[in-house]
């Protein structure tokens, strides 16, 4: 593995996972409440003018935005998890577990209650919420390194339950009918996606991915500890703050569009780290593409499993992620 040049490995991972993502998206577009054969779906995709117009409408107007949103949410949360894990040097760090997602949710709800527009108003309040919780967690868990690992998790738990309390508090205070859907949204809701929203999200997250990829090698060096990274010429303060701000920004953008989806940023980076090793220059593209595919498939399950209607995708991601989290925690202790 190490004999291959790094450029070759990045290209290989990108090509293979792009194909996988393409396949996941095809399944996501093809399977739904109105069931056709996948070949009909394929025909609708390649030659929309000759096929049934209801089918075309379902696929392009309803399923396509939803699949796009799922893909972006998965990509953002996985990459966000990867970045937090590298910066905190803890494989259990994740936007949801750290409370960053919860902070964004509080910000978003405050924005909604204040009657701000979804973009940029609610986006900004969500971002502020995520930064406040992130700063809280970092302050609470910094200090003696031997305690760091557990205290970070503990801070995350505390911040997270505080966030849930504030969210419920805000919901019970307000009579606003704008938040009638909020309980559903809290567990991760992709059902109200439209193309316009997907476009806005894409424009906010693509620059973040570029920044994170450019800093991926600096993350490799940061894993050696701050003293060593410093002695190898990495400007720790700049790299760390750029990465923290960038990843909280994209996580909060995703949360205010899609709600809370837990553990995605834990599962996806963990799988890729096992398969591809710890090099972030490979892991960043892998998490973007693979995380996207993972969420598209989770969303597919969320639509497919219930006999009637659908369940929030956060239910699926938590049911897969939480057991893995416990497993990792147990292995880390022994």
């Amino acid at each position, binding site marked *: 593995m*190490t004999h291959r*040049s*790094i*450029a070759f490995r990045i290209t290989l991972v990108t090509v293979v996972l792009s194909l996988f993502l393409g396949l996941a998206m095809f399944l996501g577009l093809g399977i739904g409440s109105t069931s056709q054969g996948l070949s009909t779906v394929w025909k609708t995709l390649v030659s929309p003018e000759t096929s049934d117009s209801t089918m075309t409408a379902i696929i392009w107007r309803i399923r396509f935005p939803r699949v796009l949103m799922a893909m972006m949410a998965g990509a953002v949360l996985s990459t966000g998890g990867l970045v937090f894990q590298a910066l905190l*040097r*803890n*494989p259990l760090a994740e936007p949801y577990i750290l409370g960053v997602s919860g902070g964004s949710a509080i910000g978003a709800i405050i924005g909604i209650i204040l009657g701000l527009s979804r973009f940029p108003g609610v986006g900004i309040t969500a971002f502020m919420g995520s930064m406040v919780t992130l700063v809280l967690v970092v302050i609470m868990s910094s200090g003696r390194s031997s305690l760091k690992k557990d205290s970070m998790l503990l801070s995350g738990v505390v911040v997270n339950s505080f966030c849930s309390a504030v969210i419920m508090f805000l919901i019970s205070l307000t009579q606003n009918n704008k938040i009638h859907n909020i309980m559903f949204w809290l567990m991760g809701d992709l059902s109200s996606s439209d193309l316009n929203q997907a476009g806005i999200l894409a424009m906010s997250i693509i620059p973040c991915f570029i920044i994170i990829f*450019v*800093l*991926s*090698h*600096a993350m*490799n*060096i940061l*894993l*050696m*500890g*701050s*003293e*060593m990274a*410093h*002695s*190898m*010429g*990495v*400007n720790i303060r700049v790299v760390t703050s750029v990465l923290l701000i960038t990843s909280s920004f994209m996580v909060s953008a995703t949360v205010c569009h899609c709600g809370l989806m837990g553990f995605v940023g834990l599962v996806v980076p963990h799988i890729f*780290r096992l398969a591809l*090793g*710890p*090099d972030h*220059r490979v892991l960043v593209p892998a998490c973007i593409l693979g995380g996207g595919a993972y969420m598209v498939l989770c969303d597919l399950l969320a639509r497919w499993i219930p006999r009637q209607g659908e369940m929030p995708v956060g239910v699926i991601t938590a049911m897969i992620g939480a057991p893995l989290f416990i497993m990792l925690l147990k292995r880390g202790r022994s």
Partner: protein
Amino acid sequence: MDVAVSVQGISHAYGKNRVLDNLWFDVPQGAFFTIIGPNGSGKSTLMRLISGVLRYGAGDVQLLGRSLKSYGGKQLAKRVAYVPQTVSAEFPFSVQELVMLGRSPHQGMLGMNSGKDYEIARQAMAFTNVDHLKERTLDQISGGERQRVFIARAICQGPEIMLLDEPASALDLAHQVMLMDLLDRLKQETGITIVMVSHDINLAAMYSDEMVLIAGGSVVKKGPADHVLDARVLEDIFGCPFLIDTNPLGNVPRIFPVPDKFKSLI
């Protein structure tokens, strides 16, 4: 002789607690140089100031004739390498990947490796005798091997000065000597100046061209081992009587702290 490191009147305090107070000394270029002193004397702080990890207020540190403050991050990393006491191994990099990281000051942001980088890493691994471990991860090798890997990584930076913070403290006796032999060979063959913090005064005395003894944040003595290792001075500083004789291996002083139950003998 040219000066590699020149510490010029630096002081440092953590809050109100003053650790270093107006410290002055020079390290000649190409020397094997050891910093010794009791716990809490400011050795590690000094090392962190020289490596640029901590910023100093008063005074200056000159590295190879230029103020440390005038160096950019990567510029400094190409001339000065640092080997910390312990390194976390949370994420399983292979030995080769880790050694290659040492090339990053010479590379762009993404650290793309050239054939030359691979060749330099191969030579560094051969020099430190870890090339047979290159596919293994850090948690699959011993403590002594791990330290050699980190020295190989430091060699890859192509430095003129190597700073080490108690590199041998966690190793058994044989591995301590092997590690010090390796550093000595590095000094002889490449002319790299070695600056090391050490608790093991006897080990340091066998290898060092010069030593500096610091206590209470200032320099007490500096020079060759036989000048620095003075029983009375050491007793004052460490608060325990010492006996000094000559190391049977050569003309180097050897010290013994005297335990209570033998005090009646001296």
